[in-house]
């Protein structure tokens, strides 16, 4: 999403209207635009042309890292750093370490996915993010076309929003 760049935002009041509006906007050839919705709308990703999220790769890598760390850590502490004979069991008792390794896999995978989602993918936290319409987190829907889009022309985009059925159209200085 185009951070802190101006553009035009149309405000819509209906879920189906915004979905078709986004679809039409994409088909018209706009690229740098996005829909702002209070809840996830089924089919919106395809309508806006958003690719599938890459977060699962983070989960995979972090989970593998957690697993390897658990394997190394239980081995190093129990068999290398200070081997202690407990009940005659082998120093490196892999089956007994599986629960620890499993929990560390889950912990690394979950925390890394959330951290990367918040800090990298979404670019949060943002202090005092720009607001166009306060109802966009409640019951209204926004369609924002950035001024960085190759086809951008403020007046034409405003007319286009009206045509799509926007309730209101705002020219936004910074979004």
């Amino acid at each position, binding site marked *: 999403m185009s951070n802190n760049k101006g553009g035009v935002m149309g405000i819509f009041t209906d879920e189906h209207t915004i979905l078709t509006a986004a679809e039409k906007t994409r088909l018209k050839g706009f690229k740098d635009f996005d829909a702002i919705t209070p809840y996830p709308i089924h089919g919106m990703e395809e309508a806006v042309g958003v690719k599938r*999220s890459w977060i699962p790769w983070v989960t995979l890598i972090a989970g593998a890292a957690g697993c390897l760390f658990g394997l190394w850590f239980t081995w190093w502490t129990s068999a290398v750093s200070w081997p202690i004979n407990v009940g005659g069991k082998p120093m490196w008792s892999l089956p007994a370490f599986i629960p620890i390794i499993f929990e*560390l896999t889950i912990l690394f995978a*979950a925390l890394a996915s959330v951290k990367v989602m918040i800090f990298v993918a979404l670019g949060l936290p943002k202090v005092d993010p720009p607001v166009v319409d306060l109802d966009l987190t409640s019951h209204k829907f926004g369609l924002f076309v950035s001024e960085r889009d190759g086809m951008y022309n403020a007046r034409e985009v405003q007319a286009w929003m009206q045509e799509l059925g926007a309730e209101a159209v705002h020219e936004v200085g910074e979004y």
Partner: protein
Amino acid sequence: MSNDDNSHNKNKPLNEKPLIAGNKTVKDVTDDISSLVERVPGLKWLMMIGGAKALLLFYLCVLTAIIGIGMGLMGVNHPVGWGTDIVTFVFWVGIGHAGTLISAVLYLFRQKWRTSIARSAEAMTVFAVATAGIFPIIHTGRPWLAFWLFPYPNQRGPLWVNFRSPLIWDVFAISTYATVSIVFWYVGMVPDFATLRDRAKRDSKKISNAIFGALSLGWRGSTRDWSHYEMTYLILAALSTPLVLSVHSIVSFDFAVAQLPGWHTTIFPPYFVAGAIFSGFAMVVTLMTLIRIAVPVFKDYITLDHMELMNKIIMTTGMLVGYAYASEFFIAWYSGSQYEGYAFINRAFGPYWWSYWTMVSCNVLIPQIFWIKKMRRCIPVMFVVSIFVNIGMWFERYVITVTSLHRDFLPANWGLFDMTFYDFGALVGSFGMFFTLFLLYIQAIPAVSIAEVKPVLNTGKEGGH
């Protein structure tokens, strides 16, 4: 308006019934749920929290005495070295599991009805695990050294923890579970905090705006945001599902890995998980019944259909637990081990017969009333049953822990366990902690997920999808 007993919907299959009653619009959902957080608390809530806090203060006094004077105040002694602390710990961890089941497992199965109760169930998980976590720490006798449970580089060698011990597995399982549950809960709340932030900004409430603004992290809700967000939520659900199964399996290893008759059983992991879901759903029903009384508007979100579904799960898991009780007896006989056989005869007919039969009646017999549809849909009945199930599930852990320990292989080693005032105080007081946290949550955080309920608003309506 609530149309709970909407008779023309009553006999429709679930996917054709409206999940949310009262023909609400998207705006109504925002207003309904946000206004509860924004208003000054009502008298009912104040009375409830007054009671809960009194109990919490009592709990703090009991814990202060136990920590300050010593573990000798509690009933544990030779041969019953695991008593109220361990029983109550397993009880509270089990309660937490239904929350994860609702928020994660039902999410993976795309059960849309979970949306209304998922937030509160997840809150219940977090608070139940927090309540549970105190007990093993008290049980160690020297809680101020609890950090020794974690393997950190130290100047004693470094001396590491014994990773071969189920008790250390437990430390890792419970702390991972608590962490992931809190993160899952919080991630689910971010869009709702953004809603509250924007409402606070509209009403120019500076403090609310600052608090909710910080909690929402500046959430905006673009399609790209939602795309990553929903994927992360799905991943957390997919990670929580094996996690929740592992946690109670590992709790059961605390017992099953020992050689004591009555503990040394391979059925324990699935049996503990089924019992955890059973008791947790009972606690969800208890809490939802109370929420529906304290906050009437939630009757539209947590409808009788939701309650009925949970009652069905209670009955199913109750029978699973009953099956485990029966198969334990069968195996005790079939194994041919006289110690194993004696442990089970002693459970049912020894000095602790009353605890065994309390467990069986509460967990297996009483939930059978839910075969009758009218009973599944009757609030007073389900409230009473859910209380019985909670009592029964506490006794299940009591039976497993105490009756197995009190008579082991050598008759010279036998003895009895008596709960003291401090045992009862810690048990009863822990409810004060749990309910105080839960009531504060109801007042401070949207108790139904605003962003998750909106997409299911049209489910089951004419022309809906």
